């Protein structure tokens, strides 16, 4: 390790301030967000018909995007809980980044689903007239729970850093005040550490089933219907394994930018990219396994409905998107990452961006083609009912949700150190001791 105990705090608190560049960046995001919100105002006024969805393909980009957001948020659970609990030390500088991403995607996922509602003002009906039989109710429940636990998993390990930060930071005054309030009189006593460690442990264990639940239930929105292409028993694990691929891509992209912009090369090292690459290969192989099951098994039998569906996505008009998603989202990364050179930061960034895009398209391929081939023929309707074509307005509304995620990540990563300071100090201390003995 190249950092010493004394450096850690100053290195990691250095990026905590809003400089000109970030204010301009946030300004651009805000303007873009308002443009997209204008698109939403049109949808509110005219009706959902301003989107390309119609009576046959009635779930389009919004629902695909919702699935993608829920998927991306699962990474918080994988990094902090699964890897953390089994004692992987190298993930320590990355846990907060993963939690910020998880929280941002999970929180905005709720808004994505509202953008798909024909009557968004009736949202309270879910609580007033909710029917427990509906998977939508399960989804609302578990996503809310996941957002709360993710927020706590972000906040609790932040408390010691906040207490440290209020002494180190001098301006702006308001931020110091925020730190003081949020640090809830943390003094670092043994009793306080005990509380943090114990509650973290409980939350880390709790978040595993909750995270599995959010994406499994999301997959059941499809698998609980009798439609060809959705009527699958492995949709739960298929979605969860795919979620890890998408989530790791998001974290790698974030790691790269934080490392560069916040000058954190000493903390987020090539070793971390190398390890993330290996983790990515592992989850991609699991995902590949589920893909083989999902497509090969019905493809072998070719029942009537499956034959039409598979023909459409393998060689039909959705084939381009399908193969892009499968190749760039799974197969090519698995092969390329076998080579050491590809596990360096920059090649990893390129691969992660490709995987990110491919993962989004994969959700679209899961959601849309099934609806273009219902059991009974589509007849006597306008031609735009036959094939789904997203409109500019729904694209803008979808873009708005990504802008929101970026804004949340930007603000959180500027208000607080993106790497847990006290954990890095602990590491440094251990290393220094280790060096002496």
């Amino acid at each position: 390790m190249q950092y010493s105990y004394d450096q850690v705090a100053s290195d990691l608190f250095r990026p905590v301030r809003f400089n000109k560049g970030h204010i301009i960046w946030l300004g651009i995001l805000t303007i873009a967000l308002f443009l997209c919100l204008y698109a939403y105002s049109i949808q509110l006024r005219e009706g959902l018909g301003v989107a390309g969805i119609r009576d046959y393909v009635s779930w389009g980009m919004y629902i695909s995007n919702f699935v993608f957001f829920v998927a991306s948020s699962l990474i918080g659970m994988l990094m902090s809980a699964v890897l953390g609990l089994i004692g992987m030390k190298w993930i320590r500088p990355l846990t907060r980044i993963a939690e910020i991403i998880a929280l941002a995607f999970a929180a905005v996922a709720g808004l994505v689903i509202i953008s798909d509602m024909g009557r968004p003002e009736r949202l309270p009906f879910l609580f007033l007239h909710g029917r427990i039989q509906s998977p939508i109710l399960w989804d609302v429940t578990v996503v809310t729970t996941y957002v709360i636990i993710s927020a706590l998993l972000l906040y609790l390990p932040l408390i010691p850093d906040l207490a440290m930060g209020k002494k180190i930071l001098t301006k702006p005054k308001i931020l110091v005040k925020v730190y003081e309030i949020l640090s809830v009189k943390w003094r670092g006593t043994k009793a306080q550490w005990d509380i943090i460690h114990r509650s973290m442990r409980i939350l880390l264990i709790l978040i595993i089933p909750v995270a599995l639940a959010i994406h499994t239930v999301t997959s059941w929105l499809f698998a609980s219907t009798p439609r060809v292409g959705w009527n699958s028993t492995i949709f739960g694990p298929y979605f969860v394994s795919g979620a890890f691929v998408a989530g790791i891509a998001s974290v790698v992209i974030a790691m790269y930018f934080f490392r560069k912009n916040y000058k954190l090369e000493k903390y987020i090292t090539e070793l971390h990219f190398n390890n993330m690459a290996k983790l990515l290969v592992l989850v991609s192989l699991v995902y590949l396994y589920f893909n083989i099951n999902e497509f090969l098994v019905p493809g072998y039998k070719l029942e009537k409905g499956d034959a039409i569906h598979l023909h459409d996505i393998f060689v039909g008009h959705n084939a381009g998107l399908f193969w892009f998603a499968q190749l760039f989202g799974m197969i090519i990364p698995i092969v390329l990452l076998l080579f050491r050179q590809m596990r360096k930061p920059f090649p990893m960034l390129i691969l992660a961006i490709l995987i990110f895009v491919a993962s989004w398209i994969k959700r679209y391929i899961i959601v849309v083609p099934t609806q273009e081939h219902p059991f009974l023929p589509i007849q006597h309707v306008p031609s735009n009912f036959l094939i789904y074509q997203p409109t500019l307005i729904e694209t803008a509304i979808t873009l708005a949700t990504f802008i929101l995620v970026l804004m949340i990540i930007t603000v959180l990563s500027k208000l607080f150190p993106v790497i847990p300071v006290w954990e890095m100090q602990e590491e440094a201390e251990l290393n220094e001791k280790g060096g002496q003995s």
Partner: protein
Amino acid sequence: MEEQDKLHDENQDEHHNEEKKQSRRKFLRDVGIIAGGAVAGGAAMYAGIHYEDSKPPSGERLKLLAQDGKLLEVDAHHVAEVHLPEGELLMKEGREGLPGHKWVMVVDLAKCRNARKCIDACQSAHHLRPEQYHINTLQMKESKKTAPYNMPKPCQHCDNPPCVSVCPVDATFKRGDGPVLIDNERCIGCRFCIAACPYSARVFQWFEPPMAEEDKDLTYNVELNVPQKKGTITKCLFSADRLREGKLPYCVSACPNGVYWFGDEMEDAVTNGTTKETVSFSELLKQNAGYQLMPELGTKPRVYYLPPKNRLFPFEDGIEEEHNG
């Protein structure tokens, strides 16, 4: 009492000129009147209620049919008309349905010549756009070797409806007498039901409905689904409003070719919408090899089909073959 009065009089004489005291007495008297009045009023109300209860039964007994189909007997003097606001009444009736019935439809595919009169009648009754179908006639061709045929396709009003299972807010519901209805004052527009329905029976109001302006003062009738509402689902209702009036559904009555039979499974009788002939429902199915659409999905449709024998109707235009049915 007399003595008290006397005392009272004496007191009055004694303090005859003391105005102060007199005013106090006046105050006390006023309070007394008010309090007395209140007590008397309360007593009268109590007596009234008591009288109502203790009133000897009129002797006249009335037989009433309760909404769940039970026959009840009550004394005539207890009977009073209930006035619910029109909207509430329509909603209450619409959700409860018509007890003692199980509506079924039989579609004779051999008869359909794609006149599309059923569609016109339906769309005008429910204030729909031309591309919005509660019932649609599809041109079917099952294999290269078989001749094509026309298939009218309303909602199948499944007894195990996937759409109702997935609805998060009880907007779409299964009625005891068979129909699956939609309450567009409850629907949140999530379209999960569209995704779940294997028969593509559901329609969404993507824009302001065509007759929104004309219908805006109407009270919502859940059995007719009028007025239609933007951002909600609309669907075939088995013409629940017509069933309440004892009439056949709009599509059934409008058919010129005798395609539709409609009736009550509990009576085992169905009536043809064109000829008005009534036959045994079970016999009709048995003798004509009646079947349901995709029964393997376990949805238990309430719409039955009679096979398209004597397919003599060539199609002028091509038909879409790419479907999973």
